[in-house]
């Protein structure tokens, strides 16, 4: 049998194979979509809402970490996780700080959020479904948020400086600029946002904000937050060399913020990051039941001043509590025992402040001290001492050094465990006022730039390699 006649069966088989062949060539079947994440691209109003919420969520994501990290550096808190002694060693005994983990935070997510904000602005700019006023409102919101993110970067990196530019297309490295330039860039961004929020007029934001922004969720009211943040930056700049012009600018910004030092004013009024037990939402990980190993430095109690009746500063009782049994460091010679834990975030969903009235009053006092307006400053300090701490009034502020000491005491207790003390003592060159609990401990002045950033920059032209790395 050497021929190969086409019997019906054979024809059928060939036809079947051709069918499969054709099916096989159908490349359309291979266009499988992304099921788990939405593609970058087109926008509509609902997506704009998700992106706006994403900016707030990303910023919230770094908040508890910031406070607990700078809390350890500023001797406010410890993390005594039994199974993870590196929460002690990598913050207090290992010098220099490890730039590959644990102590390299407040970098990647902050820049990611700056990118989120820039993306958001690009999308808003091109959105046909927004009015001009809404676009302006959206820009003002995003610029304020990205300025705040950059503040967290430079506050933790300080003298290392940071890059301020970003290229969303090439993703290329941008040069480090000095601390001063970064702060000036933040001021300028906040001022730009201020203008944009003003330009929005009475329009509403084309998205809603979480409840932590209640009272500040329109362009007009959000502008008060923008000015409050601008004041904080001006005051920082004032203490870092700018001096009087910045302190003056701070006072001006405070004037447009939500500062209120009337009798009985709500010191807690401000903007907050909010938490929820809803599925997919986040809990406040500074809460004691969420993070039982995040506890307080025992120095909080003895350092507190006494009220007239002999009981300690009311802020101590309001913010910390005694725990039993005493907590010890997770390893030999790592840390000292403490029986103090924080109670200022009593629930798993207690909000964490971004900026609030009590800080604004202290910022005004600080700006006035910087301008040597000691009398005005004394009024604000005594207002806080009395209303927050139940403490007797100070008689007078005599000189800058004494006034600063008084100011830093109030800032320490008023803003306890809200992420300020380490920055404050560093700004004033008073890092050595932080206690060394054990001879093996040391004091940190900057958090390192992540190893990954530096490894990448090492491959770049010389001008991009440093100075932060």
């Amino acid at each position, binding site marked *: 049998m050497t021929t190969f006649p086409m019997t019906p069966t054979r024809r059928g088989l060939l036809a079947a194979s051709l069918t499969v062949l054709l099916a096989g060539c159908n490349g359309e079947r291979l*266009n499988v979509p992304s099921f788990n994440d939405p593609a970058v691209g087109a926008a509509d109003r609902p997506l704009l809402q998700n992106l706006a*919420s994403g900016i707030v969520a990303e910023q919230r994501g770094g908040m508890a970490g910031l406070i607990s990290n700078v809390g350890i550096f500023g001797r406010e808190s410890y993390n005594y996780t039994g199974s993870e002694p590196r929460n002690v060693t990598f913050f207090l005994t290992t010098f220099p700080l490890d730039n590959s983990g644990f102590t390299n935070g407040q970098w990647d997510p902050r820049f*990611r959020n700056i990118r989120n904000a820039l993306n958001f602005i690009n999308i808003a700019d091109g959105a046909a479904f927004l009015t001009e006023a809404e676009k302006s409102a959206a820009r003002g919101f995003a610029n304020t948020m990205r300025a705040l993110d950059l503040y967290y970067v430079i506050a933790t990196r300080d003298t290392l400086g940071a890059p301020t530019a970003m290229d969303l297309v090439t993703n290329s490295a941008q040069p480090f600029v000095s601390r001063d330039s970064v702060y000036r860039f933040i001021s300028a961004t906040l001022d730009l946002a201020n203008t944009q929020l003003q330009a929005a007029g009475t329009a509403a934001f084309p998205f809603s904000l979480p409840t932590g922004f209640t009272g500040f969720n329109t362009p007009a009211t959000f502008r008060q937050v923008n000015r409050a943040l601008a004041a904080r930056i001006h005051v920082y700049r004032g203490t870092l060399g700018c001096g009087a012009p910045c302190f003056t600018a701070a006072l001006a910004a405070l004037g447009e913020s939500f500062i209120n030092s009337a009798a009985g004013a709500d010191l807690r009024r401000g903007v907050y990051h909010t938490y929820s037990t809803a599925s997919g939402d986040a809990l406040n990980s500074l809460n004691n039941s969420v993070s039982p190993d995040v506890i307080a430095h025992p120095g909080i109690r003895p350092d507190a001043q006494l009220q007239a009746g002999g009981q300690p500063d009311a802020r101590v009782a309001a913010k910390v509590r005694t725990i039993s049994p005493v*907590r010890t460091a997770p390893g030999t010679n790592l840390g000292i025992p403490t029986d103090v834990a924080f109670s200022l975030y009593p629930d798993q969903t207690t909000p964490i402040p971004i900026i609030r009235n009590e800080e604004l009053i202290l910022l005004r006092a600080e700006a006035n001290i910087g301008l040597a307006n000691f009398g005005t400053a004394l009024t604000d300090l005594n207002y806080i001492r009395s209303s927050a701490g139940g403490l007797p009034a100070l008689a007078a502020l005599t000189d800058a050094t004494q006034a600063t000491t008084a100011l830093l005491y109030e800032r320490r207790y008023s803003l306890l465990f809200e992420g300020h003390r380490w920055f404050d003592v560093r700004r004033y060159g008073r890092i050595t006022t932080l206690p060394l609990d054990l001879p093996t401990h040391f004091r940190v002045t900057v958090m390192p730039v992540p190893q990954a950033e530096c490894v990448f920059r090492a491959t770049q032209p010389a001008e991009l390699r440093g100075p932060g790395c």
Partner: protein
Amino acid sequence: MALSTIALAALLSQPAEAQRRLTGKVTEEGSSAPVPSATVQVVGGTAGAITSNAGTYTLNAPSGAFTLRVRRIGYRAQVLQISASQTTADVALKKDVLQLDAVITTAQQGTLEKKNAATATVQVTSEELTRVPAVSIDQALQGKVVGARINMNSGAPGGGGQIQVRGVTSVLGNGEPLFVIDGVIMSNASIAGGQNSISRASGFTANIASVQDNRTNRLADINPAEIEDLQILKGAAASALYGSRATNGVVIITTKRGKSGQTRWNVTQRIGQASLLRGVGQRRFLDTTSAIQAGTQAANAAIAREQLTAALAANDGKIPFNDFTSQLFGRRDASWETGIQVTGGSDATRFLASVSRKLDNGIAINTNATRDNARINVDQTITDRLSARLDLGYTRSTANRGISGNSNTPVTSPLYVFGATPSFFNLNGRDAQGNFIVNRFGGNANPINTSNPFQTLARVQNEENNDRFIGAAELTYQALETATNKLRFSYLIGVDRFTQDNQLYSANDLQYEPSDGQLGTAVQATANSRQLNQLLKVTHQFTPASAPFGLTTTAGLTQEEQGLNTARVRAIGLVPGIPNVNQGQQLTFQSRELQRDQAWFVREELLGFSEKLYVAAAIRGDRSSNNGDVEKYFVFPSVQGSYRLVKLLPTIDELKLRASWGQTGNRPLYGQRFLTLSGNGLIGGVNGLGTASTLGNPAIKPELKEEVELGFDLQALGGRVALEYTYFDAKVRDALLLRNLPNSSGVTTQFDNVGQLSNNGHEVALNVVPVQRKGLTWVSRVAFQRIRNVVEQADNVNSFPPNVGFGTAYGRPRIVKGVSTTAIWGNRPIFTTVNGVETAVVRDTIIGEGTPDFETYFTNTFTVGPLSLGVQVDWRKGGDVSNVGQNVFDQYRNARDHDDASPCRGAAITRDDCVIVTGGARRLVDTSATANLGDYRWAKWNGGQDARVPVQDGSFVKLREVSLSYDVPAAVMRRFLVERISSVRLSLVGRNLAVWTPYWGMDPEVSNFGNNNVGRFVDLATFPPSRQFFFSVDLGF
């Protein structure tokens, strides 16, 4: 009319030549026992038969002289010349103890005799797989596959193992072999079940499950008893026909099939038990001071004193000692397995049916695994030309694997808690009410942050249920069949579908439950996997009468689809006693993936010159939905050749030289091509979206492996000696890595084909039959493998593979150009002296190597009449392990050898092993005459500044398998048993009976991070290894 049709049909089916009948009997040489199921085939013709239970056969033979080939798995094939007048031919087959005559798989479903194979292919027989029961096929394969590293992740029942063929071939892509069972591409996914919600190994808030969940890989669903033969294609040329899924090797599983003739039953019953192979021990306190010191470390001084006082009072003033590991993992409940197989059928319809049920009880309370398998394989000859097969396989596997591995606050993993609990504390005791006592140690003096493992394992449910169907249907049409031309079409469709269901429940009253502020934890996780593949193939065999060779051309099309949908829900804050997740605070998670592939292939094979020369070339084009360009076919060519030098010297039967070259691919993973936004959490009831920290890459393509393999196979002394040697050298180009972007750009990395890896190695197997006489056969095998993998190119990439290792303090993998892919990197002090001034720094550098120097497997089988003894010993030299578990014991001063002498007693400052770095200078650790070992290790580790302390040598010698079996002789059976029973075998077998190792931990082969490509060296609070004994009875009738 009807008559003429029948006549015509008869005429058509009538071969050209007249026929005669040939009968005979096939027996085993030496014993003269009949050999059933042997294939008797006319060479070059279609006539054939299969021998009966009595070894007899009858076939319709062509007229004239011809050649008859008789073969049977396990015997050397025999070729006879039959003269034109002959009507009977008896054959005696010699046992093929060295498997020289096996048949291997080449092209998808194509076969080739092993003697001609041009690549080193490992074949494992049914007998080798099932001789000693194993928790899963991975375990059964340990030590049997030269060229692969096969490790179990832990000692938990139910499986969880990894096969890595010829080194690390991918960092971010799939790194495991492709598994094909009867032509069905099957999933070997390892899907996390949610243990993380109890152990919190990878954090709690954002993760329900994690890679540290002690996952089982789904190879565990396959019943080894259903397997006829398992082959591992290692080199690129061998696996090239699996295209862009073949860089990691291909494991081809062939299940048993029916044979015509008398229906044969086989029943296997096994019973046995598992016991702790090697515990970790506890420190025995010699005085109350040290006991209080240790207790203080894990709680505080007050609790330590109080608990020690109570313990002393309850033990006549002596310090009690509890070896917690032996207590908790001391269970020895019976395990058993029952299997029934039946084969038979007519010439037209042949079937195999198999059912089995297996229960493996773990060595801790509430830990076990079961597997039920059912399979029906049917072969049908529809017409002379058309045949079909239908295979239906069903599996139901369950596993209760307890809690083990890494753990964070609250600490719930038993071995972790044991590390923190001083041995004087009676953890396994009960209080006055009969409840488990509250563990006071390990939670920083707060009991809700620690746990009592005796309570945890007794009460926590961590149950995995898996239902799986694997089925195949194949239709083969022999379109043409002449002496010179054979043309065959076949179409195969395979389906693999499973649903893995994990349920985890931690009741409200467990010690650690209040830790998160909510009582009770429940997880419900479901994974649905569905895979489908189709293969259309045409084979043309051309054997010209005039030419001294034959050609085989195979061409085909394949289409594959794999979908996986994983959904998990966790609830905390439960209604007491109710494990439902629709209560309390919930967290949900879902992930879907779907991938489709299409490919074409052509293979040309030449076999000729008295079957001495074999050359094959193949090419395959693949495209996949996972590639950036889904339309583009990526082409993978291969060539291979072998030449047999027969009777080279009087003592050398044959020397085969072989060489091959090939390319294969490894397609990207699902999702790596997409540019997406990433969800960053719910806030104020709205889903937040933002930049994904890793960018997808729309230009992503498969990793490309190019491999050269050279080797020889030598047979000498009449088949008594066989030596196989293979050298391979592979390069993986376009390796998928995460290309770095500056983090300050807001994105940190992007998937890209920017890496290059290289692997090379030597594989040697020496098979010897030192003794083969009537009463005794001794078969000895030594297999040796040495694999080296190096990163050739990894510039500016994220060098840290995701989800493996605990960082610089404990050792971790790192992908660095010019360095071993499996090097272990970690901190160590480095001292440098410049101008007489020494500076000391702590650097992240290479401190170990995960790949062993070599692995050697020794297998010896002694057969004396009906008695057979098999012993397998595995020896691994090198292969470092990150012993994080020891670090936990040292942290709390509870290591069993804590009180041994420190090596630094009396040491000088110049001894680098006795100094640590403080403030940039060296400082001695405790060198006093009482300095002890536990404190020395802890001090030397120095909070993670010297990771050489936990990174330790993992060399071992394991007595992997011992089997003693007795085939009851026919005479005895006739006297005592029913006539119909044709064979009875009794066996006593054991697995992992002993281990000899300098390693401090329980087992150097484990992996805290489960199956992964490069980080298989972390040992932390692993489920302890067990030794297993089984007694089996096999009945055939």
